[in-house]
C-alpha cells in the first residue's frame, strides 16, 4: 500500500517542516534585526583577538568538564533509580530533579554556597580535611559543582526515561538467561543509554556553554569568562548588536561542532519492531547491588536536595504570608504560570511536530535530537534584542510583550521537550508503523488509538520540563518586562536588587514550590493514564 504510506508520511513531514519554519522565523527575525542595526550604525566585524581566544578556550573547557561531571554520575544515578521503581518517596525525588531548572542562577548559586561555600554548612568538615580554613569553592571547582547541581538531575531524568523505553521482553529474556548485573548492564541497559547519551550530553553541554551568572559568581574572577559574558557585555555596556550577533554565531558554531562530535559517538536506534507482549518486570537484585544503589541514590539525592533545602530554609525565614497577599506577587505568579503554560504547550507541539516530521528509521537519528539543542546556544537576550530592533518602527508593544516572551521561552524549552518526546516517538513509530499500515489506521484514529496512549507520558514530561524552564526564565523577560509585566523571577531579582533579600528568598521558595507542584501534577496525570 505505497500510496497510503505516503499520505501518512506527507502529513507528518509537513508538520515537521512547519515546526522548522516557525523556529527559523523566530531566529531569523532576530538575526535580521541585529544585522540591520549593525550595518545601519556602521559597525564592523571584530577580529578574533587574544581576549576572545582565551574566552573561547575557557568556555569550551569548562563546558566539556561540566558535561562530564554531570552526565557520568547521572548514568549511575538514573540506573539506580530505574532498578528500584518502588522505594518510598521516589515520585517526589523525581519531581525534585526538575526543581533546579526553575531557580534563577543566582538563587541556585547561593544555595550551593550555603553548603559548599566559605561560610557554608560543610565548611567545618572540609576545613578539617585540608589545612587551615576552607577557602570556598571559587574557581573551576565551583563552576563544575554548580553546573552539576543544575544538570546532573536533568541528565538523570532523561537517562531514566531512556531506560524506560527498554522493551519488557528484553528484561524477560535477561531474567530467563540469568544474566549477571554487569551483563544486564552491558546487554540491556547500556544500548538504551548509549542511544540517549549524545542528545543528553549535547543538551547539558549547551546549558553549560551558555552559562553566565554561575561562571562569573563562582569563577572567582574574570579569568573565568564565557562567551555568553562577552555577548552580554557587547549588547549591554557596549551596545554593539553586530558584535553580539557575531559572538552568538561563534557560540552556535562551537556548540554545533561539539554536537556533531557527540552524534558520531552515538548509534542509530535499531528500533524494536514487535510490540511488547510481556509485563514489565526487572530482574532480581542482590543485596550487594541494593546496598550500592542505595548509596548512589542517597548521594545523588543529597547532592541535589542539599542546596534546594538551603534555598527553602532561607525562604521560610521570609514573611511568606505577607508576600502571598501582595498584589505584585500574585500578579507576577499568575503571569509566570500563564507564560509557563503557554510556552510549554508551544514547545511540546513544536517538539512533537519535529519528531513526527523526521521519524524514519535509521539514519541521522542522533543528529536531529542534538540539532534541536543548538537553539540553546542562542542567548534569549540576543533573540529579544534582535526582535526589538526589527519591530522598532512600530515598537514591540504591537505584538504584545507576552507573546514575544512566550515564544522565546518556548524556543528555549524546545530542546528539552524534544529530548523527552523524540525517543518515545521513534520507539513508537518503529514498533507500530507497520501494524498501522496493515490495519489502515491513520490520521486522527491512529493518533487516538495507537500514538496517544504511548506518548502521553513523554508528552507530559516534555510539558512539565518546558514549564519548569519557562518558570525560571530571566532571558526574554529581562528585555520586555516592565512594572506592568512581571514574572516571579523578574520580581525576585528586583527585590534582591533593592536590599529586600528576605523577600527574594521567599519568592525563590514560592518559585521552587510552584515548579514541584507542576511536575508532580503532570506525573499524576501520566500515572492515571498508565493505570487506566
Amino acid at each position, binding site marked *: 500500500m505505497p500510496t497510503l504510506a505516503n499520505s501518512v508520511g506527507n502529513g507528518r513531514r509537513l508538520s515537521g517542516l512547519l515546526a522548522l519554519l516557525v523556529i527559523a522565523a523566530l531566529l531569523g527575525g532576530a538575526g535580521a534585526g541585529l544585522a540591520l542595526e549593525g550595518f545601519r550604525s556602521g559597525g564592523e566585524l571584530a577580529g578574533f583577538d587574544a581576549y576572545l581566544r582565551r574566552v573561547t578556550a575557557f568556555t569550551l573547557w569548562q563546558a566539556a568538564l561540566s558535561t562530564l561531571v554531570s552526565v557520568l554520575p547521572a548514568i549511575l544515578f538514573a540506573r539506580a533509580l530505574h532498578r528500584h521503581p518502588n522505594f518510598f518517596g521516589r515520585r517526589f525525588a523525581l519531581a525534585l530533579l526538575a526543581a533546579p531548572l526553575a531557580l534563577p542562577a*543566582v538563587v541556585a548559586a*547561593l544555595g550551593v*554556597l550555603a553548603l559548599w*561555600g*566559605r*561560610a557554608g554548612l560543610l565548611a567545618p568538615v572540609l576545613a578539617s580535611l585540608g589545612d587551615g580554613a576552607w577557602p*570556598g569553592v*571559587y574557581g573551576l571547582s565551583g563552576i563544575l559543582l554548580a553546573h552539576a547541581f543544575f544538570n546532573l538531575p536533568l541528565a538523570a531524568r532523561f537517562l531514566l526515561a531512556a531506560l524506560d523505553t527498554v522493551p519488557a521482553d528484553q528484561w524477560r529474556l535477561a531474567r530467563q538467561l540469568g544474566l549477571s548485573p554487569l551483563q544486564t548492564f552491558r546487554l540491556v541497559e547500556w544500548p538504551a543509554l548509549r542511544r540517549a547519551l549524545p542528545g543528553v550530553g549535547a543538551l547539558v553541554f549547551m546549558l553549560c556553554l551558555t552559562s*553566565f*551568572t554561575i561562571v*562569573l*559568581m*563562582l*569563577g*572567582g*574572577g*574574570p*579569568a573565568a569568562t564565557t562567551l555568553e*559574558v562577552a555577548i*552580554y*557585555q557587547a*549588547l*549591554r*555596556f557596549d*551596545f554593539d548588536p553586530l558584535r553580539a550577533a557575531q559572538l552568538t554565531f561563534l557560540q552556535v558554531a562551537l556548540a554545533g561542532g561539539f554536537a556533531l562530535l557527540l552524534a558520531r559517538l552515538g548509534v542509530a536506534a535499531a528500533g524494536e519492531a514487535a510490540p511488547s507482549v510481556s509485563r514489565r518486570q526487572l530482574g532480581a537484585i542482590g543485596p550487594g547491588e541494593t546496598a550500592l544503589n542505595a548509596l548512589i541514590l542517597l548521594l545523588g539525592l543529597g547532592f541535589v536536595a542539599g542546596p534546594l533545602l538551603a534555598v527553602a530554609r*532561607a525562604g521560610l525565614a521570609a514573611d511568606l504570608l505577607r508576600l502571598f497577599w501582595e498584589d*505584585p506577587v500574585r500578579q507576577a505568579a*499568575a*503571569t509566570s504560570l*500563564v*507564560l509557563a503554560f*503557554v510556552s510549554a504547550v508551544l514547545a511540546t507541539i513544536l517538539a512533537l511536530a519535529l519528531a513526527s516530521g523526521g521519524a524514519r528509521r535509521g539514519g541521522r537519528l542522533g543528529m536531529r535530537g542534538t540539532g534541536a539543542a543548538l537553539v540553546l546556544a542562542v542567548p534569549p537576550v540576543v533573540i529579544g*534584542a534582535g526582535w*526589538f*530592533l526589527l519591530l*522598532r*518602527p512600530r*515598537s514591540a*508593544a*504591537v*505584538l*504584545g510583550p*507576552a*507573546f514575544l516572551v*512566550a515564544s522565546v521561552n518556548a524556543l528555549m524549552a524546545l530542546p528539552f521537550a524534544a529530548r523527552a518526546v523524540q525517543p518515545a516517538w521513534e520507539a513508537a513509530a518503529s514498533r507500530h508503523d507497520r501494524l498501522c499500515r496493515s490495519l489502515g489506521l491513520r490520521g486522527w484514529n491512529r493518533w487516538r488509538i495507537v500514538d496517544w496512549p504511548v506518548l502521553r507520558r513523554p508528552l507530559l514530561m516534555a510539558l512539565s520540563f518546558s514549564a519548569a524552564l519557562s518558570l525560571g526564565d530571566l532571558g526574554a523577560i*529581562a528585555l520586555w*518586562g*516592565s*512594572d*506592568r*509585566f512581571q514574572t516571579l523571577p523578574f520580581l525576585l*531579582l*528586583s527585590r*534582591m*536588587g*533593592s*536590599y*529586600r*533579600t528576605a523577600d*527574594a528568598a521567599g519568592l525563590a521558595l514560592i518559585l521552587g514550590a510552584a515548579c514541584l507542584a507542576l511536575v508532580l501534577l503532570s506525573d499524576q496525570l501520566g500515572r492515571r493514564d498508565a493505570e487506566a
Partner: protein
Amino acid sequence: MRPAFLAICTAAFLAVPAQAADLTIYTYESFTAEWGPGPQVEKNFETQCRCDIRFVSVADGVALLNRLKLEGENTEADIVLGLDTNLVAEAEATGLFRPHGVEPQGLRVPGGWTNETFLPFDYGYFAVVYDSEQVKAPPASLKELVEGGPDAEKIAIQDPRTSTPGLGLVLWVRAVYGDRAPEAWAKLNERVLTVTPGWSEAYGLFTSGEAPMVLSYTTSPAYHRIAEGNERYKAAPFSEGHYLQVEVAGMTAKGAGNPHAKAFLAFMTGPGFQDVIPETNWMFPAGRTEKPLNPVFQDLVEPEKTLSFSPEEVAADRKAWVDEWLEAMSR
C-alpha cells in the same frame, strides 16, 4: 479550561495598547517599585500639574540607555530618569536628548553641576560595606584594602564589564592610583573572594555571610538601620576619599514638545520629589528638601574628599581602564 484562566490568558496575550498619558517617564525598576520613590513622586506631581504620568521601567540605568537606543527616535519617553554620570556622555551622543532649559534652585551635588542636558536628582558614594560581626578591624583606606594580602578578610566585587558599581570601583582605584592602578588591582586580586555580574549577587553573598565585605554605597547601612533596625552592617570610611555617583534625568526630543516634561524636571529638583528620595531610593537628595533628613543619614560615612571623573573622561578611557582591570585580575 476555567473561564477565569482563559480571561487571564487573553488579557496577557493581547497587546496592551499604550495608555494615553500626559507624560511618559522611562526609569529603572526599583524606582517604580511600591516601596520606591515612584508612587509618591507620581502622586505629588499629579496633584501639582493636574495631569497623568506613566512610568515605564526597565532593570537598571544601563538597561535604560539600551532601551532608548533600541527604540531610537520612536521612543515613547518624554523623560528618561535614572542614568548615572558615567552614562551621560554616551546618552548625549545618541542625539536623542534636548537641553532641559531649567534653572534649578538649590542643587547640592558635591562638585557642582553645569550640564545642560541632564539634571541630577540624587547622589551617593561608593563604599566598602562590611559585616561588623566578621570584620573587627575594617580597612581605613583604599590602600589598606588593596594591601591586605590573601589572608585578610575577603571582599565580593562586581564586574565592570556588566555592572555599574563594578565600573565605579575601577574608576575609584584609577582616581586614587592613577597609572599604578594595574599594580593595585593585582594586589587587591588576592583579597577578592569573587567577581559577580551585578550588585545583587555580590550583596547576596554579603548578607548570606559568605563574603564579609562587599562593594556597595555609603548609604547601604542606612537601609539596614531604618528598615530592619539592624546595626550589623557598616561602611568603612576611606582616607583617600570616596567615588561619587550622581543619578540624572533628561528630556528627549519628544519630551521637548511636551510642556509637562519641563515642568517635571523643575519639580524634580524641589521638595515634592527630593523629600521622597532618601528613604525610598536610599541615596542623598540632590536638590532642595523641606523635611529634615532622618538622623541615621547624619551618622553615615561622610567622605573627606569626593572623587570623580568627568563624563567625557569616563567615555574616553572606560574601555582602556576596564581592559587594564581585566588583564590584572585574570592572572
